[in-house]
């Protein structure tokens, strides 16, 4: 029953969006689909370069903090767009799309790629976005391997 009512609920959710939220939703949807396609065909290094993402130098200057409303709108748009796409969207694709959406909103952010050892002793990777020193979720267990910021060409 839930799978049958889900498209209806999603449509109602879409109808309830404001005009700017809808625009951001379509923007996120386009970039999620594009990034999925790219990551399936190109190496991570090539995708990062094409997205104008450059490694953060050490010590890195602090990023200006964006308004909480801007962050919420960007994350909601990416989450809703990811749900609208078929199949699972990886954290890396979501994080890359979120970087794009935040760049569009003039909120510079940082893409982090980290690793942790799972209970089965296997190494698991995760990607997330940090803005103003904060991420959506606290990621204490992940050792951060790489941090990227959008170059000025994205802004």
């Amino acid at each position, binding site marked *: 029953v839930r799978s049958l009512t889900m498209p209806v609920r999603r449509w109602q959710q879409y109808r309830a969006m404001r005009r700017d939220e809808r625009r951001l939703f379509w923007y996120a949807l386009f970039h999620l689909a594009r990034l999925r396609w790219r990551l399936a065909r190109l190496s991570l290094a090539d995708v990062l370069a094409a997205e104008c993402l450059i490694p953060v130098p050490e010590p890195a200057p602090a990023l200006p903090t964006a308004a909480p409303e801007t962050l919420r709108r960007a994350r909601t748009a990416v989450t809703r767009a990811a749900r609208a796409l078929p199949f699972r969207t990886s954290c890396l694709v979501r994080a890359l799309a979120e970087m794009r959406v935040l760049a569009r909103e003039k909120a510079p952010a940082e893409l982090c790629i980290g690793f942790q050892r799972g209970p089965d002793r296997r190494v698991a990777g995760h990607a997330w976005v940090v803005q103003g020193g904060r991420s959506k979720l606290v990621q204490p267990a992940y050792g951060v*391997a790489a941090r990227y910021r959008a170059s000025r060409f994205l802004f």
Partner: protein
Amino acid sequence: LRYRRRNDVHFAELPDGGLALLDAKRSVFHGCNAVGKRIWELLAQPRTRDEIVAQLKREYAVDPARCEQEAGDFFDQLLNQELVEPCDP
């Protein structure tokens, strides 16, 4: 021949003392234990395979033959995955 780690390979320490290596060029990551992490640290400077094995023998109380075998295998894996590169002496 001396080798050193590739500059564009990112790495992160794991909470259990191991290390995760991210090769963005090949879109893969690898995990290793504390000894692998030590080998990776040693490869920050150009070193030969024998120098690395000798250093590990000094640092760890382990059977020399076993150390040579396992460190050599790990080094071969690093070479096969192109995580290290030869450099001029």
